């Protein structure tokens, strides 16, 4: 890899208040434009890994660098800049129920203070990108799981983040929809966005054959380029 590391973890440990270990002395580098799968059993530390990256949580010890900045030391303003550069997609979508598909995506621009004109210009493009332009006036409860996830992805990439984090994005959709959603991620990745995705979806990991980081009890037990869901030598 000639690209500089966009994410760097140095000996990172996260212990939660109730002594649960999230991560246990983890060090790794992720480069710009990479597509990385985080795999492992529930509670292995995948979600903790992602939460630490956009500082939903702070590490107990160790250092996390995103784009050369130790994110534990960020001031509020810098933290906002970090989060503008990181998109997040969740298993449960986290859409606002009282807003349409269009408004859910537009909201992410509104709250950053964008002008109406910019919003009206950009949102339709994103809706098209995630294949939802025909459903833009629908409310989340009128949409299928797959459709809601497309909207959530649209919201995550509306502000052109450099890194996209996804926590089980296909966990609540059927297998064929999961494949469609992965196509969207592949496309986002193809234009240089770094993607870090925690997943249980063996089929997808095996099919995409990207870098796989396997976690077990908070430690990295495997880090394999073009890897499969389970280790095969």
């Amino acid at each position, binding site marked *: 890899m000639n690209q500089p590391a966009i994410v760097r973890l140095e000996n990172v440990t996260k212990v939660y208040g109730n002594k649960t270990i999230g991560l246990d002395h983890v060090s790794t580098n992720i480069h710009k434009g990479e597509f990385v799968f985080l795999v492992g059993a529930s509670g292995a530390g995948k979600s903790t890994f992602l939460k630490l990256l956009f500082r939903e949580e702070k590490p107990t010890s160790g250092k996390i660098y995103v784009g050369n900045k130790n994110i534990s030391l960020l001031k509020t*303003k810098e933290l*906002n800049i970090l989060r503008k550069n990181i998109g997040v997609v969740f298993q449960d979508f986290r859409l606002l129920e009282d807003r349409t598909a269009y408004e859910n995506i537009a909201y992410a621009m509104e*709250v950053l*203070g964008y002008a109406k004109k910019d919003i009206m210009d950009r949102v339709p493009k994103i809706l098209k990108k995630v294949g939802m332009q025909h459903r833009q006036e629908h409310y989340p409860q009128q949409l299928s799981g797959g459709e809601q996830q497309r909207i959530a992805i649209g919201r995550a990439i509306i*502000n052109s983040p450099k890194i996209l984090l996804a926590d089980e994005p296909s966990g609540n959709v059927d297998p064929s929809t999961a494949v469609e959603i992965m196509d969207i991620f592949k496309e986002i990745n193809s234009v240089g966005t770094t993607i870090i995705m925690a997943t249980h979806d063996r089929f997808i990991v095996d099919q995409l054959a990207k870098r796989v980081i396997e976690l077990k009890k908070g430690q990295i037990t495997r880090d394999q380029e073009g890897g499969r869901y389970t280790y095969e030598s």
Partner: protein
Amino acid sequence: MNLKQIGYFLKQALKNMARNKVMSFSTILTVAISLLIVGSFVVFIVNAGMFIENQSDKTQLSVFVDTTYTQEQAKAVENKLKEIDGVDTLQYKSKDEALKEMIDKQGGESGLQAILGNENPMPHTFIITGTDNTKLEGISTVAKTIEGVYKVDYAKDLADRLTSIVNAVRVGGVVAVGILFLIAVFLISTTIKLALYAKRKEIQVMKYVGSSNSFIQGPFLASGMLLGFLGAFVSSVILFVAYKFLMDWAQNVEFLNLSFQSGQITLIIAGLLLSGILVGAVGSYISLRKYLEV
């Protein structure tokens, strides 16, 4: 922060309030009641102060002579009074004059006269003015020692008594006002807490996309300030009407010497509105600090 942002905050604040109508209404009402009591205290204290000042300004002293004294005996008292240092003018009011004045005050002869018959319980009275106000106390002291003088009335005594009453009310008022402010702050902070809870999902999304703190907090701060302002506005309207009514009445009561003063009430209402906004800002700030983890 620019105008567009403030407009956005206010719009969101109105939406927040519309979403929590009952809570918003009761908050406005409580703030209004609290500030109305605060305003009433202020009006009372200011006007009592003015009344006392009016009274203290009066340079008169009334000396009452023993009712059994004859006119000649009263004349002797008069001569002694004239000799007191600081006496400027001395006006004699006979028993008959005093009685006539009394009957007039009561509104007509019939009633009082019938009860009294030929008795006249009124004393001979001397109205004394001092060469200046500071002499009055000395004149009063000396006059009391003259034989035949049974009472000296002097406006400053009344003023002093009133002052001590007003001071007591002032102390009690400050305590009550403090408690009322705390209640108002607490209520607004609770309302904002509920609004934060109702919008927790939106707040989460805002955090994820890197919205600035001021953008997240602005609408809630605006909500609190708006609630405080509306409460203050309601109390101001009530206070203004009550003040106008009361002063129109007081104007006809001669000795009160109080009247409607637009400058005074404007100042008090401006103070109330500012307090309302401040109470709202403090109340929402407390909730934002406590419940909004960024």
